[in-house]
């Protein structure tokens, strides 16, 4: 039994259980929130190290695989979890005072995302997805005294369950018509039979629908704005990072692996989802007045761009998607660190108008936000540019000129609403200043700002790591 390949997950699970126990046995007078958050960040760091040194291999009766691709995605997930946990350090709910379950739930959700990255069987796919989602349902409703937070949790739970149902239906169809749930065996069956039956195609469509829901790709995006707006800001930052990356890990792995032989069939489907997401994300964001809602539509659009790399169905395309996700993770956390800092007299404000004149009242934060906005719209030399460049060039290489043209047009439309925020910050009359930023948020926005602005310095290593991950996926 080659159990050592899941060692990082086991360690992280053990850490989670220990932190939960440590938190709950504390006396009522001491709030273990800060201590538990610190322990969680340490657990993420340790697990991150263990992931980088973990050996390749497949085990647990062919349900779990560890390869370069899994390691890349796991490290990204862990970074996303750790950054979100740092952001929670300054989080105070409506009732005041943090509760230590918040970092623990982020930790458990991250274990789910790691399992998703390592799935080698439809069973692991589903268990990992549910482990990650169930924790997020609770996280969304974490501020239980706030109506919008409860609403966001409930909405995400109901729609998420529906999507899980679709996904399970897809898995059962795949199993029924393919005869197995192992990725490798499905691949063999498809190559031997020289094509998929109608039932299997239907199964793939349902699988894509279920995963596209978690990605918030159009037409399965309806939950995104409400959930993003209602959930506590650190949770929204987490939600837009690690789980999406892990869902991408799943969709890339099953499309390139078991269904790789059917690329001509599913390519059109992914292309359509990609186009719809880009168009809808950029158009629907224009009239938004709430910055969290705006970021929700922006994330829908970004998922469209990232799917472009998969639509190309080449190693270069997958590399592009991976680099895109890496850049998106950092700039996204940066933006949400900025949004979390939008507090007046202890109350969160999330209207875009509240940012008025930020360039004068808080030049540091405004500069960081401007960097993130430029990166989101893909302005060189920020991080977002390189991600876009890679997926666009992959689409060009695969001859998807229509997709490329639509991507370019929607980027131009997107520039309008990103630049509008920059304009509000620098050219509008000053609104009252925000409260002083807590050290954790200042650290996050500055460090993410540096990463985003100077991404060109780490572009080489990130690209070669993504290249190695992509070639682990498509041999």
């Amino acid at each position, binding site marked *: 039994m080659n159990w050592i390949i899941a060692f990082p997950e086991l360690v992280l699970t053990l850490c989670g259980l220990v932190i*939960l126990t440590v938190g*709950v046995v504390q006396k009522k007078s001491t709030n273990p929130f800060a201590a538990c958050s610190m322990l969680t960040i340490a657990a993420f760091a340790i697990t991150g190290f263990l992931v980088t040194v973990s050996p390749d291999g497949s085990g647990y009766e062919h349900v779990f695989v560890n390869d370069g691709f899994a390691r890349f995605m796991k490290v990204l997930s862990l970074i996303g979890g750790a950054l979100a946990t740092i952001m929670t350090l300054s989080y105070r709910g409506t009732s005041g005072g943090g509760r230590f379950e918040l970092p623990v739930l982020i930790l458990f959700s991250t274990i789910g995302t790691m399992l998703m990255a390592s799935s080698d069987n439809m069973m692991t796919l589903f268990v990992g997805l549910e482990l990650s989602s169930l924790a997020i349902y609770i996280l969304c409703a974490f501020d239980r005294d706030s109506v919008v937070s409860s609403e966001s949790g409930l909405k995400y739970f109901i729609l998420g369950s529906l999507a899980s149902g679709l996904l399970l239906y897809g898995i059962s169809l795949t199993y029924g018509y393919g005869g197995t749930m192992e990725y490798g065996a499905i691949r063999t069956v498809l190559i031997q039979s020289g094509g998929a039956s109608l039932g299997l195609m239907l199964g793939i469509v349902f699988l894509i629908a279920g995963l596209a829901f978690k990605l918030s790709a159009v037409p399965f995006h309806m939950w995104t704005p409400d959930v993003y707006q209602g959930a506590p800001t650190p949770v929204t930052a987490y939600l837009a990072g690690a789980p999406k990356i892990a869902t991408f890990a799943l969709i890339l792995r099953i499309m390139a692996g078991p269904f790789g032989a059917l690329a001509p069939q599913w390519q059109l489907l992914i292309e359509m989802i990609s186009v719809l997401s880009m168009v809808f994300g950029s158009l629907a964001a224009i009239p938004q007045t709430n910055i969290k809602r705006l970021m929700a539509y922006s994330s829908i659009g970004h998922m469209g761009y990232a799917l472009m790399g998969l639509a190309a169905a080449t190693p270069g395309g997958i590399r592009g998607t991976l680099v895109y996700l890496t850049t998106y993770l950092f700039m996204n956390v940066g933006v949400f660190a900025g949004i979390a800092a939008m507090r007046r007299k202890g109350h969160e404000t999330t209207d875009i108008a509240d940012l008025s004149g930020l360039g004068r009242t808080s030049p540091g934060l405004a500069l960081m936000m401007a960097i993130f906005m430029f990166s989101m719209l893909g302005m060189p030399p920020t991080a977002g540019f390189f991600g876009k460049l890679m997926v666009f060039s992959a689409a060009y290489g695969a001859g998807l000129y229509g997709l490329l043209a639509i991507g370019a047009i929607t980027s131009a439309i997107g520039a309008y609403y990103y630049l509008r925020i920059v304009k509000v910050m620098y050219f509008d009359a000053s609104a009252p200043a925000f409260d002083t930023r807590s050290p954790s948020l200042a650290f996050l926005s500055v460090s993410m700002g540096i990463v985003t602005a100077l991404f060109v310095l780490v572009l080489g290593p990130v690209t070669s790591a993504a290249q190695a991950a992509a070639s682990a996926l498509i041999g």
Partner: protein
Amino acid sequence: MHDVIASYFPVLVFGVIAVGIAGAMLGGSLLAGHQKPYAEKTSAYECGFEAFDDARRRFDVRFYLVAILFIIFDLEVAFLFPWAVSLSHVGLFGFLSMLGFLGMLTVGFIYEWCKGALDWD
């Protein structure tokens, strides 16, 4: 097809015997027992609710918590039975996996205990 149906014959026998015994018990007590009902005797006891009432009535949310906690340990037993039966196949690894699962549930138990979910007041 006929063989498949025939193989279910013991189930039919079991069903008939079960219905027969249950019917004999209920019918016997109905015929032979003394029936002296009064309000206190026929009212619902122990479960605390009227047996026939509006299903949408409000009830204490703590019942929900107890039900959820029950499900966790109910499922634990549901997993333990197949594990116990197949212990010779799953070996030491399977044995330790289940111990890990039980340990995880124990952490959950400690959590709910410390959080006061087991106190009714």
